[in-house]
Protein backbone atom coordinates (compact mmCIF):
# COMPACT_ATOMS: atom_id res chain seq x y z
CA UNK A 1 0.00 0.00 0.00
CA UNK A 2 1.10 3.58 -0.42
CA UNK A 3 0.82 6.85 1.50
CA UNK A 4 -1.12 10.01 0.75
CA UNK A 5 1.90 11.75 -0.72
CA UNK A 6 2.59 9.07 -3.32
CA UNK A 7 0.91 8.96 -6.70
CA UNK A 8 -1.30 5.90 -6.91
CA UNK A 9 -0.42 3.83 -9.95
CA UNK A 10 -3.06 2.13 -12.06
CA UNK A 11 -6.67 1.77 -11.05
CA UNK A 12 -7.48 2.96 -7.54
CA UNK A 13 -11.25 2.66 -7.84
CA UNK A 14 -11.53 -0.40 -5.62
CA UNK A 15 -14.35 -1.80 -3.50
CA UNK A 16 -14.66 -0.59 0.10
CA UNK A 17 -14.13 -3.22 2.75
CA UNK A 18 -14.62 -4.25 6.34
CA UNK A 19 -14.70 -1.69 9.09
CA UNK A 20 -14.61 1.21 6.68
CA UNK A 21 -17.74 0.09 4.88
CA UNK A 22 -19.49 -0.42 8.18
CA UNK A 23 -18.54 3.03 9.41
CA UNK A 24 -19.63 4.82 6.25
CA UNK A 25 -22.99 3.09 6.59
CA UNK A 26 -23.42 4.00 10.25
CA UNK A 27 -22.30 7.58 9.69
CA UNK A 28 -24.69 8.01 6.79
CA UNK A 29 -27.59 6.66 8.83
CA UNK A 30 -26.73 9.12 11.60
CA UNK A 31 -26.67 11.98 9.09
CA UNK A 32 -30.20 11.08 8.06
CA UNK A 33 -31.27 11.21 11.71
CA UNK A 34 -29.67 14.65 12.01
CA UNK A 35 -31.76 15.80 9.09
CA UNK A 36 -35.01 14.17 10.14
CA UNK A 37 -35.00 15.82 13.57
CA UNK A 38 -35.52 19.29 12.07
CA UNK A 39 -38.81 18.68 10.21
CA UNK A 40 -39.90 16.48 13.10
CA UNK A 41 -39.45 19.30 15.60
CA UNK A 42 -41.47 21.59 13.35
CA UNK A 43 -44.32 19.12 13.68
CA UNK A 44 -43.94 18.14 17.32
CA UNK A 45 -41.62 20.57 19.06
CA UNK A 46 -42.49 23.82 20.82
CA UNK A 47 -39.48 25.89 19.77
CA UNK A 48 -39.01 26.82 16.14
CA UNK A 49 -37.45 29.92 14.60
CA UNK A 50 -40.05 30.14 11.81
CA UNK A 51 -41.94 33.29 12.72
CA UNK A 52 -43.96 35.62 10.52
CA UNK A 53 -41.40 37.32 8.35
CA UNK A 54 -41.73 40.55 6.43
CA UNK A 55 -39.70 43.52 5.32
CA UNK A 56 -40.24 46.78 7.11
CA UNK A 57 -38.78 50.23 6.78
CA UNK A 58 -36.94 51.12 10.01
CA UNK A 59 -38.90 54.39 10.25
CA UNK A 60 -42.19 52.52 9.87
CA UNK A 61 -41.15 50.02 12.53
CA UNK A 62 -40.24 52.91 14.83
CA UNK A 63 -43.71 54.39 14.25
CA UNK A 64 -45.40 51.07 15.03
CA UNK A 65 -43.37 50.66 18.20
CA UNK A 66 -44.27 54.16 19.34
CA UNK A 67 -47.94 53.56 18.63
CA UNK A 68 -47.70 50.34 20.63
CA UNK A 69 -46.06 52.19 23.53
CA UNK A 70 -48.70 54.97 23.47
CA UNK A 71 -51.50 52.42 23.62
CA UNK A 72 -50.27 50.22 26.45
CA UNK A 73 -47.80 52.26 28.47
CA UNK A 74 -48.10 51.80 32.23
CA UNK A 75 -44.92 53.50 33.43
CA UNK A 76 -41.33 54.44 32.77
CA UNK A 77 -38.14 52.99 34.05
CA UNK A 78 -34.65 54.42 33.53
CA UNK A 79 -36.18 56.54 30.81
CA UNK A 80 -37.54 53.52 28.99
CA UNK A 81 -41.32 53.17 28.71
CA UNK A 82 -42.94 50.15 30.35
CA UNK A 83 -45.89 48.60 28.53
CA UNK A 84 -48.42 45.98 29.50
CA UNK A 85 -50.14 44.67 26.39
CA UNK A 86 -53.17 42.35 26.62
CA UNK A 87 -52.61 38.62 26.08
CA UNK A 88 -52.84 37.55 22.48
CA UNK A 89 -51.76 40.93 21.11
CA UNK A 90 -49.00 41.93 18.74
CA UNK A 91 -46.11 43.34 20.73
CA UNK A 92 -43.11 45.30 19.49
CA UNK A 93 -39.51 45.34 20.60
CA UNK A 94 -37.07 47.58 18.82
CA UNK A 95 -33.31 47.43 19.13
CA UNK A 96 -31.46 50.69 18.68
CA UNK A 97 -28.00 51.91 19.62
CA UNK A 98 -27.95 51.11 22.55
CA UNK A 99 -31.22 50.14 24.13
CA UNK A 100 -34.24 47.89 23.76
CA UNK A 101 -37.57 49.71 23.54
CA UNK A 102 -39.84 49.26 25.49
CA UNK A 103 -39.79 47.24 28.73
CA UNK A 104 -42.44 44.51 28.37
CA UNK A 105 -44.81 43.23 31.04
CA UNK A 106 -46.29 39.94 29.94
CA UNK A 107 -48.48 37.25 31.45
CA UNK A 108 -47.36 33.75 32.08
CA UNK A 109 -49.01 31.22 29.79
CA UNK A 110 -50.40 33.83 27.37
CA UNK A 111 -49.34 33.90 23.74
CA UNK A 112 -48.04 37.07 22.09
CA UNK A 113 -46.68 37.83 18.67
CA UNK A 114 -43.37 39.49 19.36
CA UNK A 115 -42.20 41.73 16.51
CA UNK A 116 -38.45 42.18 16.55
CA UNK A 117 -36.56 44.66 14.43
CA UNK A 118 -33.81 47.23 14.55
CA UNK A 119 -33.79 50.94 13.95
CA UNK A 120 -30.13 51.10 12.91
CA UNK A 121 -27.64 48.22 12.73
CA UNK A 122 -27.81 44.47 13.47
CA UNK A 123 -28.55 43.61 17.10
CA UNK A 124 -28.87 40.31 18.91
CA UNK A 125 -31.94 39.45 20.99
CA UNK A 126 -30.84 37.24 23.87
CA UNK A 127 -33.41 36.55 26.56
CA UNK A 128 -31.63 35.67 29.78
CA UNK A 129 -31.30 33.58 31.84
CA UNK A 130 -33.33 31.41 29.45
CA UNK A 131 -30.85 31.72 26.63
CA UNK A 132 -33.28 32.32 23.77
CA UNK A 133 -31.50 34.05 20.89
CA UNK A 134 -32.58 35.70 17.65
CA UNK A 135 -30.84 37.90 15.13
CA UNK A 136 -32.36 41.38 14.84
CA UNK A 137 -31.81 42.84 11.38
CA UNK A 138 -32.71 46.37 10.28
CA UNK A 139 -35.32 46.37 7.53
CA UNK A 140 -36.85 43.04 8.62
CA UNK A 141 -39.71 42.32 10.98
CA UNK A 142 -39.38 38.98 12.79
CA UNK A 143 -42.82 38.11 14.20
CA UNK A 144 -42.33 35.34 16.73
CA UNK A 145 -45.26 33.76 18.56
CA UNK A 146 -44.00 33.39 22.10
CA UNK A 147 -45.53 31.96 25.21
CA UNK A 148 -43.76 32.77 28.47
CA UNK A 149 -43.79 29.61 30.51
CA UNK A 150 -42.40 31.00 33.72
CA UNK A 151 -42.99 34.15 35.76
CA UNK A 152 -40.07 36.34 36.70
CA UNK A 153 -37.89 39.31 35.92
CA UNK A 154 -35.84 38.73 32.78
CA UNK A 155 -33.24 40.57 30.72
CA UNK A 156 -32.64 41.05 27.04
CA UNK A 157 -28.94 41.31 26.36
CA UNK A 158 -27.64 42.40 22.97
CA UNK A 159 -25.38 39.68 21.60
CA UNK A 160 -24.57 41.10 18.20
CA UNK A 161 -21.83 43.72 18.08
CA UNK A 162 -23.51 47.07 17.40
CA UNK A 163 -20.85 49.66 18.16
CA UNK A 164 -19.00 50.98 21.13
CA UNK A 165 -22.02 50.91 23.47
CA UNK A 166 -22.93 47.32 22.63
CA UNK A 167 -22.31 45.99 26.14
CA UNK A 168 -24.55 48.65 27.67
CA UNK A 169 -27.54 47.52 25.66
CA UNK A 170 -29.75 45.62 28.03
CA UNK A 171 -33.53 45.46 28.19
CA UNK A 172 -36.10 44.00 30.49
CA UNK A 173 -39.08 41.67 30.33
CA UNK A 174 -41.30 41.04 33.32
CA UNK A 175 -43.61 38.05 33.34
CA UNK A 176 -46.36 37.98 35.93
CA UNK A 177 -48.43 35.04 36.96
CA UNK A 178 -52.09 36.12 36.90
CA UNK A 179 -53.24 32.84 38.42
CA UNK A 180 -51.86 34.07 41.76
CA UNK A 181 -53.81 37.33 42.10
CA UNK A 182 -52.37 38.51 45.41
CA UNK A 183 -48.79 37.90 44.45
CA UNK A 184 -49.37 39.43 41.02
CA UNK A 185 -50.42 42.80 42.45
CA UNK A 186 -47.42 42.97 44.73
CA UNK A 187 -44.91 41.84 42.18
CA UNK A 188 -46.20 44.18 39.47
CA UNK A 189 -45.76 47.19 41.74
CA UNK A 190 -42.26 46.17 42.67
CA UNK A 191 -41.31 45.07 39.23
CA UNK A 192 -41.75 48.44 37.57
CA UNK A 193 -40.31 50.36 40.43
CA UNK A 194 -43.51 51.72 42.01
CA UNK A 195 -42.89 55.44 42.10
CA UNK A 196 -42.33 55.72 38.39
CA UNK A 197 -45.96 55.03 37.65
Amino acid sequence: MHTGIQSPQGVWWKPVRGGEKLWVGIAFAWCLVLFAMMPLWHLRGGQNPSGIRSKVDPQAFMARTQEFIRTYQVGTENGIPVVEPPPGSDIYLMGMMWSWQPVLRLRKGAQYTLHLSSFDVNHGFSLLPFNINFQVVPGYDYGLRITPTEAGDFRIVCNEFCGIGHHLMIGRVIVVDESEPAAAGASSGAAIGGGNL
Partner: protein
Amino acid sequence: MAKEGLPPGIVNPPRPLPEKAGESPEEHRTPGTLVLVLVFLAAFVVYYFVNWKLLSFVWRVG
Protein backbone atom coordinates in the same frame (compact mmCIF):
# COMPACT_ATOMS: atom_id res chain seq x y z
CA MET B 1 17.35 7.87 18.18
CA ALA B 2 15.98 11.31 17.42
CA LYS B 3 18.76 13.65 16.46
CA GLU B 4 18.37 16.95 18.26
CA GLY B 5 16.47 19.40 16.07
CA LEU B 6 15.05 16.97 13.57
CA PRO B 7 11.69 15.19 13.78
CA PRO B 8 11.97 11.39 14.02
CA GLY B 9 10.04 11.09 10.76
CA ILE B 10 13.01 12.68 9.02
CA VAL B 11 15.92 11.11 10.93
CA ASN B 12 14.38 7.69 10.84
CA PRO B 13 11.68 7.75 8.16
CA PRO B 14 8.96 5.09 8.26
CA ARG B 15 9.95 2.01 6.27
CA PRO B 16 8.24 1.97 2.86
CA LEU B 17 5.78 -0.86 2.37
CA PRO B 18 5.50 -3.07 -0.69
CA GLU B 19 2.45 -2.16 -2.77
CA LYS B 20 0.95 -5.60 -2.09
CA ALA B 21 1.17 -5.29 1.71
CA GLY B 22 -2.12 -4.86 3.50
CA GLU B 23 -4.23 -5.94 0.55
CA SER B 24 -5.26 -9.36 1.82
CA PRO B 25 -8.36 -9.47 4.06
CA GLU B 26 -6.36 -10.89 7.01
CA GLU B 27 -3.97 -7.96 6.87
CA HIS B 28 -6.49 -5.26 6.03
CA ARG B 29 -7.84 -4.82 9.56
CA THR B 30 -8.30 -1.66 11.64
CA PRO B 31 -10.26 -2.78 14.72
CA GLY B 32 -8.77 -0.11 17.02
CA THR B 33 -10.01 2.72 14.84
CA LEU B 34 -13.47 1.18 14.67
CA VAL B 35 -13.66 1.25 18.47
CA LEU B 36 -12.52 4.88 18.53
CA VAL B 37 -15.07 6.07 15.99
CA LEU B 38 -17.87 4.26 17.79
CA VAL B 39 -16.90 6.08 21.00
CA PHE B 40 -17.06 9.27 18.95
CA LEU B 41 -20.52 8.44 17.65
CA ALA B 42 -21.76 7.71 21.17
CA ALA B 43 -20.50 11.11 22.37
CA PHE B 44 -22.13 12.77 19.38
CA VAL B 45 -25.52 11.13 19.97
CA VAL B 46 -25.50 12.03 23.66
CA TYR B 47 -24.53 15.67 23.12
CA TYR B 48 -27.01 16.08 20.28
CA PHE B 49 -30.01 14.82 22.19
CA VAL B 50 -29.04 16.58 25.42
CA ASN B 51 -29.29 19.79 23.43
CA TRP B 52 -32.77 18.95 22.16
CA LYS B 53 -33.70 18.38 25.77
CA LEU B 54 -32.24 21.75 26.81
CA LEU B 55 -34.17 23.39 23.99
CA SER B 56 -37.44 21.89 25.15
CA PHE B 57 -37.09 23.70 28.50
CA VAL B 58 -37.26 27.23 27.09
CA TRP B 59 -40.35 29.32 26.25
CA ARG B 60 -42.56 28.16 23.45
CA VAL B 61 -41.68 30.13 20.39
CA GLY B 62 -42.56 29.70 16.74
